[in-house]
């Protein structure tokens, strides 16, 4: 399958995001298998050095789109630029990490070009001439195989941590090609007024040795008390999945996951948490993970060392009593 694969690499504060290295790594393996050329695409203002670094580290050509207006991301500018890149380069696949940015612009870009976008893929199978992707549906409980349809390019984003980054020590000198794509006024209407870091909460879970985390399965703020009780009995910190903090059962600063904290305690007990990927990315590197959930197919069990398939309201009171005995 001759042709070309493009990978869009995202960067913030002068560094390529780890998820983009994963996309580049996967892109290289795929391009090798399909006997295709791979190019990495970088958009930004002062990105010359970064582009050379990427080219050195992956041994591939890097296309840069340098534009003063692209210091800050906007979907209009990205779609304008990337649709022209897609038309000039005519890639087979256009890959990227599944980031907040990809969610924002990729569907618009694909639609503009009359194509589809397959988001948040966790797997890929290649046989002979056929490439299919696998993505999670129904909150990670089921996988969906998705095939490419119509004419290329096919737009695909990859889930964080699903593919390995890999690096080659290239002896070639870096290859960077700058493309100039001017931005017309009509794509510059959006005003980005501010980008800011939310104030750090008082709760720092990153150093906790034991975390007891509760999810939607606890049912209400009142019943969430069971989590607090077990945490107290074990001298542990309290964590939560997003629905708990969204519902106001616990302050936002206890949230663990992609939009909260990332934790790696030696023991993580997840109670009534089904394990959407947004939660898993924040806790899956904990040393020992326990999952208590009534649904045996809940994705939390896929990362757990120990599991209890059962009712948290029956299991937690027993655990609290046992924990109190241990502490005595």
């Amino acid at each position, binding site marked *: 399958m001759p042709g070309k694969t493009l990978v869009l690499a995202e960067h913030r504060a002068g560094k390529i995001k780890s998820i983009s290295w994963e996309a580049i790594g996967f892109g290289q393996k795929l391009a090798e298998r399909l006997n295709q050329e791979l190019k990495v695409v970088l958009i930004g203002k002062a990105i010359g050095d970064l582009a050379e670094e990427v080219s050195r580290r992956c041994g591939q050509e890097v296309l840069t789109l340098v534009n003063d207006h692209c210091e800050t991301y906007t979907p209009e500018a990205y779609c304008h630029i990337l649709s022209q890149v897609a038309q000039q380069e005519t890639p087979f696949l256009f890959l990227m990490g599944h980031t907040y940015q990809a969610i*924002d612009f990729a569907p618009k870009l694909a639609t503009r070009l009359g194509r589809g976008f397959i988001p948040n893929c966790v797997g890929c199978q290649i046989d002979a001439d056929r490439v299919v992707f696998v993505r999670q549906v129904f909150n990670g409980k089921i996988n969906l195989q998705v095939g490419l349809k119509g004419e290329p390019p096919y737009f695909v984003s990859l889930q964080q941590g699903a593919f390995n980054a890999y690096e080659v020590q290239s002896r070639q000198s870096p290859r960077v090609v700058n493309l100039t794509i001017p931005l017309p006024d009509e794509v510059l209407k959006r005003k980005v007024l501010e980008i800011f870091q939310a104030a750090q909460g008082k709760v720092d879970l990153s150093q906790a040795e034991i975390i007891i985390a509760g999810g939607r399965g606890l049912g209400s703020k009142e019943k969430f008390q069971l989590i607090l009780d077990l945490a107290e009995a074990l001298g542990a910190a309290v964590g939560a999945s997003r629905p708990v903090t969204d519902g106001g059962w616990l302050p936002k600063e206890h949230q663990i996951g992609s939009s909260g904290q990332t934790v790696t305690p030696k023991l993580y007990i997840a109670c009534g948490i089904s394990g959407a990927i947004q939660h898993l990315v924040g806790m899956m590197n904990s040393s020992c993970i326990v999952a208590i959930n009534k649904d045996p197919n809940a994705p939390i069990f896929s990362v757990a060392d120990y599991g209890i398939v059962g009712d948290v309201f*029956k299991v937690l009171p027993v655990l609290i009593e046992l924990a109190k005995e241990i502490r005595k």
Partner: protein
Amino acid sequence: MKILVCLKQVPEKDSRYKIDDLATWIREDDLVFETNESDVYALEEALRLKEKLGGEVGVLSLGEERALKTIKSGLAMGADRAFHLSDPAFQGSDAFVVATAIARAISGQNFDIIFTGVQSEDMAFAQTGTILAQLLGWPHATIVMEVNVSEGGKKARVKRELESNLFEVVEISLPAVLTIQSGINQPRYATLKGIMQAKKKEIRRFSAQDLGLESSQLGKTGSMVDHQKMFFPEKKKKTVILEGTPEEAARTLMERLRKEAKVL
């Protein structure tokens, strides 16, 4: 301010699934359906804007008969009228087909803002809203955590959630599509009065034909991506499942955490 909120009906969150014989969809017989979570937050945000600025809120859902439950609960929460896009030919459609149908159904309605949830909890493609914006030629903002309408309804300032606790404030011109993130507000419950009033509110129904959509534009054929089959994922880690009564399982767990994993 005329606001449209797109609501999707999805299986209840802690549903247990069976995959159907063709492996293209789940078996729906034993499932209970509810409105997609972030869509409920989107509706609440729309109702608050209406209360502040005046105007009306419409709700729209694409789906079979059972989607009427979602529409009626939207009307009971306080929406003024509804659009129900329903046709067997919609089955198997991807986000592109759905967005196309929505764009057709609301043409000429002069909405100022369209809200959707960030993503659905069933298929999670997270793109119906963005595709809809592109089809309408409107700007969009995704993963929205705050909405302020300014300049007499000509513009909106929105706060967007970015990764690692970063946020962005952008100003875009209206009309626009905003995809609303869960947690932006605390959605209200429908009152008895709301439920009674909902019965009198208008629900306009559209078939594929009403929208001028042909079979080649619908379902699997009209889709941009090819949904091939569903299967249960393999487990990544070998999980030791502790059996027995809750009491026994809890005891075994504590024992193992102390003696085997040595983490207590």
